[in-house]
């Protein structure tokens, strides 16, 4: 998942979680606030009543000798005040929840009980407030709160999401820069524009690294050129000397054959050095990849070149190349060599019982070429070392240095072609080339 989506997801989850917790706790909070508010109201009313009594005396409310009590409700029965004589053991001053039966209707009240004395007589004052009204207010507040919170979540989430996206845009750019390139010299060196120092550092570090790798590539290239010069010059001298020697007239046939054998050995040395140089050059990206060509044509060209030799050894070459693929941004001579080496290798190791099949197909939407022979096959150990240099199947059978498959592998890697082998000893070998 992309970083910006992860951040947004985290963002929305935390918001929802916090809001959820808040909504769960809100009734308690509101109840507490309401009760405190109600209690304050009740105390204020008590003060009013007490100060009235102090001013006009208790008689207007209740006569000192009668036993009746004073009570007053408002019409909606939301509040009441009652005053009565009482004989209590101690002074009362507390607030409690209690239900009262008023005109046949039981109603929850918050009631303040307060006792006081006037002329030695104890009176009990009760001031009540219905909780219905309190709960009603709480419900309303909750509704408004909920709407408000949803609104806040939506607004903050969209702004957060857009801002994160904006913040992370340089990172996207850096990733795109890396995705596009196949080698360091192709890296876009224009700095990413951002004020985020982390991204600046990342971009700079990448640029430095690319410079460094490119420098190493160049160094390797120089070394390759120098080695090839140093190795091939003496071979060149020796070769010309031997060839001139061979051209001498009246040369003893025995000498002549020995010189020819030396030349052949020298040619092997030359091929070997050239092969190693070739791999080094491919690995240090000294070849261009800018041709576009048909794979089918390349394969058919190779088949027509190898088939006379295969025919001579009574080995059939089956052309089952039904589908074509135009390979873009590639090096044709290298691709030619890659297939040539593998097919030639198959011819060399195949028994003449059944043919070598060269097939092309689209497998899982990717162009795939297979070369299968019915030769001696390979063991697991042999497969492991098949593409490494100088590892041969039957140690030394004089059929080359075994570097051909190493060449094929380096060419395949260079072109991002996946090359693979399936084989069992005795039942032949199958090479896969899966194109990018």
């Amino acid at each position, binding site marked *: 998942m992309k970083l910006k989506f992860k951040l947004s997801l985290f963002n929305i989850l935390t918001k929802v979680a916090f809001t959820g917790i808040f909504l769960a706790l809100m009734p308690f909070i509101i109840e507490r606030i309401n009760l405190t508010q109600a209690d304050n109201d009740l105390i204020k009313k008590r003060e009013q009543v007490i100060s009235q009594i102090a001013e006009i005396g208790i008689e207007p409310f209740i006569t000192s000798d009668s036993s009746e009590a004073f009570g007053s409700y408002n019409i909606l029965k939301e509040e009441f005040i009652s005053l009565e004589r009482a004989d209590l053991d101690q002074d009362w001053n507390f607030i409690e929840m209690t239900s009262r039966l008023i005109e046949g209707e039981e109603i929850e009240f918050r009631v303040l009980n307060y006792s006081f004395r006037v002329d030695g007589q104890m009176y009990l004052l009760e001031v009540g407030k219905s909780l219905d009204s309190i709960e009603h207010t709480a419900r309303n507040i909750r509704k408004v709160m909920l709407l408000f919170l949803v609104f806040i979540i939506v607004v903050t989430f969209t702004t957060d999401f857009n801002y994160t996206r904006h913040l992370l845009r340089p990172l996207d750019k850096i990733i795109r820069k890396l995705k596009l390139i196949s080698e360091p010299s192709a890296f876009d060196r224009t700095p990413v524009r951002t004020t985020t120092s982390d991204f600046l550092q990342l971009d700079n570090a990448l640029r430095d690294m690319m410079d460094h790798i490119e420098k190493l590539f160049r160094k390797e290239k120089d070394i390759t050129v120098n080695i090839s010069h140093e190795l091939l010059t003496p071979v*060149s001298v020796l070769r010309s000397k031997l060839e001139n020697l061979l051209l001498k007239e009246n040369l003893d046939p025995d000498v002549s054959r020995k010189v020819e054998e030396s030349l052949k050995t020298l040619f092997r040395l030359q091929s070997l050095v050239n092969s190693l140089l070739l791999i080094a050059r491919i690995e240090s990206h000294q070849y261009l990849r800018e041709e576009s060509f048909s794979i089918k044509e390349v394969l058919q060209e190779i088949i027509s070149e190898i088939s*006379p030799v295969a025919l001579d050894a009574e080995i059939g070459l089956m052309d089952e190349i039904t589908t074509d693929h135009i390979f873009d941004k590639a090096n044709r001579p290298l691709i030619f060599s890659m297939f040539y080496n593998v097919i030639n290798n198959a011819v060399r190791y195949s028994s003449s019982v059944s043919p070598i099949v060269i097939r092309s197909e689209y497998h899982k939407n990717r162009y795939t070429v297979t070369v299968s022979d019915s030769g001696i096959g390979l063991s697991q150990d042999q497969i492991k070392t098949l593409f490494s240099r100088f590892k041969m199947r039957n140690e030394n059978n004089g059929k080359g240095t075994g570097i051909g498959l190493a060449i094929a592998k380096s060419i395949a890697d260079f072109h991002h072609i996946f090359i693979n082998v399936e084989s069992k000893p005795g039942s032949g070998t199958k090479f896969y080339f899966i194109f990018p």
Partner: protein
Amino acid sequence: MNVLIVEDEKSLAAEIAEFLKSENFLCDIAYTGTDASEKIAVNLYDFILLDLGLPDYEGLDLIREARKNNSEASFIIITARGAVEDKVKGLDLGADDYLAKPFALIELLSRINAVARRKFNVTDPEIRLGDFIMNIQSRKMFFSNKEVDLTKKEYDLLQYLVLNMNKVLARHQLYEHIWGNILDDQYDSNFIDVHIKNLRKKLNFHAPTPWLETVRGVGYRISLEN
């Protein structure tokens, strides 16, 4: 024909000179770029074999100089650097051919002859081989005006032998010439034998080919008295 060999490896220069002299060329040798530059300014050469890896000179500059002096010389670049850019740059500057070291002396001679044929516009493209006629322009082989159907490789092989008539060509030399562009790890001398076998079969269908000789232990030769 006058040839200047620009090559800092003295023994190699000597071998090339010895070989070309035996082929009736007049040879001059320059071991350094400065020396070569002076010689090009003073003498007229038909061919300049130029090694790019000179210690004192950027080899390609010599081509520029020669072109400035209106020299008619044809350049054949010989180099052990073998980098693709060198080849492209050299040919861009007007070099006529490019040969990677180590090369066969026979191959060098064929290249020189090929350039010479182009340069001096050799009019007769037909070569008689007994009752056969090879046309090196249309790259076809004829027997009494009827084309002999040869594959490209078979024709290449035959032409290389024909153009180096009366010389023994070793199997590896033939292989190098025909399959030199294929980057393989080994040469199959068998390849050459198979192709020669098929070639003989096709030609013998029309007439015997005693002129195409097998030289035991070495290779093949076309022997014809002109």
